[in-house]
């Protein structure tokens, strides 16, 4: 069984994966007990239209 959580980070400009990795490493995950991976969503989410 694998339990995890998915957290979406939205960038206002160009996505900064190094920054996202730092946020994940220092806050969102505890590397002592958790693994994490960071990936860029290929589709851009329309913030206004996502939840009609």
């Amino acid at each position, binding site marked *: 069984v694998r339990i995890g959580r998915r957290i979406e980070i939205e960038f206002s400009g160009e996505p900064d994966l190094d920054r996202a990795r730092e946020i994940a490493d220092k*806050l*969102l995950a*505890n590397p*002592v*007990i958790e693994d994490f991976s960071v990936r860029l969503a290929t589709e851009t989410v329309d913030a206004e239209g996502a939840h009609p």
Partner: protein
Amino acid sequence: MTARVGVVTFPGSLDDGDAARAVRLAGAEAVRLWHDDPALHDVDAVVLPGGFSYGDYLRCGAIARFAPVMQTIIAAAEVGLPVLGICNGFQVLCEAHLLPGALTRNEHLHFRNRDQWLRVESAGTAWTNTFQPGQEVLVPVKNGEGRYVADQRTLDELDATGRIVARYVRGNPNGSQRDIAAITNEAGNVVGIMPHPEHAVEELTGPSVDGLGFFTSILKHLAGAPA
């Protein structure tokens, strides 16, 4: 001069009142510290109390570690300020990397609260010097995420260097590795403990008064330490 022992209140702390009371009963002046105020107000030592800081929604202690007061405490602890983290405070110390390892959900997945026997393994820390090594004490334990875990190398190192401060005896309430209830850092000034010594300081409310020893220890430590 009376020693000043700070007790931090985070949003969601709930044992800060009892911790301050234990400090006073031990004979020190309790100084309430606020999460949003980075000043330590000339305290000689700090207690991080139990509770559910910031709701513990992300991970226990994960947000508290970034509180303004913690930035000062982390810097001061690295150069010798005595810090005792109880329960949630222990979790905060692990998240802040002042102590190794982490605290995870109890092995049986249930919240556990009961009176618990501990064996004090190390009387060499700032917070345990009034105990005898091997002394057994009775204090309440109450946690949902109190299972101490670390990699084998870290556990071996803690064992070999006498940094396991207390172990659960007569039953392990949460599945902690090697029955670990409390650990310390290399210098012995930072101690994290999962059970609650601050709830065992008066006959009226506690199962014993054994917990008081942790708070009288810091007074003894401060009295002996150069100013």
